């Protein structure tokens, strides 16, 4: 049972890698690379959020706050203090981890609606600070972010790079980089899920009382996964800022928090590949529907509503469940 379980996860990772590296064969427009890069980075944050929501069964309605903190810390350090992007990203992530731990300890004692309210408040506080500290963050008008750099080598969506002797555009380079980051994020998440920590988290999800009765330190594991998912958001936020080249407090907004959690729910809570599909759908749909102008929001809402009514477990789990059932039925028919 356990072996097949992790085999399935490995399959998911390989599948994701194939999709990511095969996609450039079908993309001809640099605009689509930009979109795909963005999706990969947001999907990374969603994978982290899924650890908290899908596996530990805790909710966070303020995750964009951590995303925004990572983005702004990296932006401020690289543009105002001449830091290189990687130390800025790491220090930012450590800072977010400390903050997440400090707020996570008390608020994760809350349950259900109370926990959602508390995380909501955390997100709001961060967004308000980013909006109001005009001298530092540029306020609602936002601030520019320098390109991502590694040891003096800059990665800009507008540059030209050579990779293994091939000339590639900055858009493609960013896309490949973001794809690799997403793969690493998924790999780390799946390892965590299959570790003793992952099992402890799932037991918390199942029944917190039962878990604590059999000796799982629920408080410790809950704040641990809260910190991990906040770090995911912070790292992805920092990269997102460098890719965009300009950020406004909307990266930390309530709307964005809701979007992240919707990606988790739509794609399928607890399914790492599923939540990535959720991110893809929710980022691509508005672009497709943009041609419908006024009908955009109506159709967007309708699609979400129908999905939730007919696929309450999320896209991927419903589809795999359906396929498995069919396979079982056809196997039964043969016998």
């Amino acid at each position, binding site marked *: 049972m356990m072996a097949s379980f992790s085999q399935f996860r490995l399959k998911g990772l390989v599948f994701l890698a194939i999709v990511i590296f095969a996609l450039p064969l079908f993309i001809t*427009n640099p605009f689509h690379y930009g979109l795909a890069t963005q999706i990969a980075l947001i999907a990374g944050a969603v994978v982290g959020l899924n650890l908290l929501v899908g596996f530990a069964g805790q909710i966070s309605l303020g995750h964009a706050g951590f995303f925004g903190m990572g983005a702004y810390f990296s932006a401020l350090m690289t543009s105002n203090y001449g830091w290189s992007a990687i130390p800025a990203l790491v220090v930012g992530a450590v800072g977010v981890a400390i903050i997440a731990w400090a707020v996570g300890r008390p608020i994760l004692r809350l349950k259900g609606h109370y926990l959602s309210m508390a995380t909501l408040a955390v997100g709001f506080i961060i967004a308000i600070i980013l909006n109001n500290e005009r001298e530092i963050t540029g306020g609602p*008008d936002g601030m520019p972010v320098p390109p991502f750099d590694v040891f003096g080598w800059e990665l800009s969506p507008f540059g030209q790079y050579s990779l293994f002797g091939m000339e590639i555009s900055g858009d493609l380079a960013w896309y490949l980089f973001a794809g690799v980051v997403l793969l690493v994020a998924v790999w780390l998440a799946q390892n965590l899920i299959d570790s003793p920590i992952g099992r402890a988290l799932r037991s918390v999800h199942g029944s917190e009382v039962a878990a604590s009765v059999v000796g799982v330190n629920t408080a410790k594991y809950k704040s641990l996964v809260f910190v991990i998912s906040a770090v995911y958001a912070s790292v992805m936020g920092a990269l997102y800022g460098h890719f965009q080249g*300009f950020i406004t407090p909307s990266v930390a907004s309530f709307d964005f928090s809701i979007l992240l959690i919707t990606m988790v729910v739509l794609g399928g809570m607890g399914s790492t590949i599923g939540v990535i599909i959720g991110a893809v759908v929710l980022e691509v749909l508005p672009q497709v529907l943009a041609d419908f102008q006024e009908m955009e929001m109506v159709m967007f809402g309708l699609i979400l509503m129908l999905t939730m009514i007919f696929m309450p477990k999320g896209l991927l789990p419903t589809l795999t469940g359906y396929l498995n059932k069919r396979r079982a039925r056809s196997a039964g028919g043969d016998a």
Partner: protein
Amino acid sequence: MFKKITRRAGKLTAIAAAGLLAMNVQAADPIRIGSFLSVTGPASFLGDPELKTLEMYVEKINKDGGVLGRQLELVHYDDAGNASKARNFASRLIRSDRVDIIVGGSTTGATMAAVPMVEQAKIPFISLAGAVVITSPVKKWVFKTPQTDRMAAERVLNDMKARGLTKVGLISGTGGFGSSGREQTLAAVQEMGGIEIVADETYGGSDTDMTAQLTNIRSTEGVQTILNFGFGQGPAIVTRNYAQLGIELPFYQSHGVASDGFLELAGSSADGLRLPASPLLVPESLPESDPQKPVVEAYKSEYEARWNSKVSTFGAYAYDGLMLAVEAIEKAGSTDKEAVRDALESIQGHVGVTGTFNMSADDHNGLEADSFRILEVQDGGWKLIN
């Protein structure tokens, strides 16, 4: 039954496709004008009139034969006031829709998010957002039509000085508009000299009572006049509190409240206050000698006839943006991006609704502070002062 429906749908699609093809043939090689505006979301009061203006004038220009004998085609997306979306749509306009020029960007955030993309792709971009940062420092491909908040501050301070008021109590909102206005007012005071800020108070966007701040200002020694820089309902509350406290000092507001909606909110307590505003609010009181008079009157009556709603200053920014783009394309004689950009930069004496534009290599806005008119509220209406 179901088959019938699908067959019928198939037929319909075929007809629609044929229609589209025919349209494409007819409108061979149009000039593509790209736009991303905040038509929905918190900044929809900007984007909505802007989009309506663009749609209506693209239609009108096409009916009159287009530009350079070519039709205009408006490609528009709604960024909902979100900077990341604005960047995506700018990218889409440039790389996927391959537009010839961009007129858009309702908010400063949306504009600035698109700027790196625009500069890199080397495509002329006329922004409709207010802040100074958009055109200062000058960016080669970026232009803008609204006056800056700096000009509003200068205009107000000059009017104060002309009335012999030199000790100003400043009160401002903490939102984007108010805090930027406060910064620019302080900077303008520094530069102009002969006038000083003696009190500096702020209020939050959702505050419902500003009597404390106003009382502080009133009790400041030597204060001669009060200026409020803010947006939304805040300034209306300040105005009401001002009247309730019975403060007798001359009162100024910013261009942020230059709309009829503000007059309704503030009621009779607004009487006597002054503010810098677009001539669009008082087209009939402009003197006949004013070159802007016919342009302003035409825009107002055409907009109101077409949409059956009140004209707004923000729509006028889009009008000016589109007309500047058209003039530049005509001057350049083609849609070659470099030529259009150079033509934009050399536009002189272009009379728009917002003001008269004189572009140059180091001024991509082209407006002077006196393109703002100083208005006074009298008996619940606007009165032109100068």
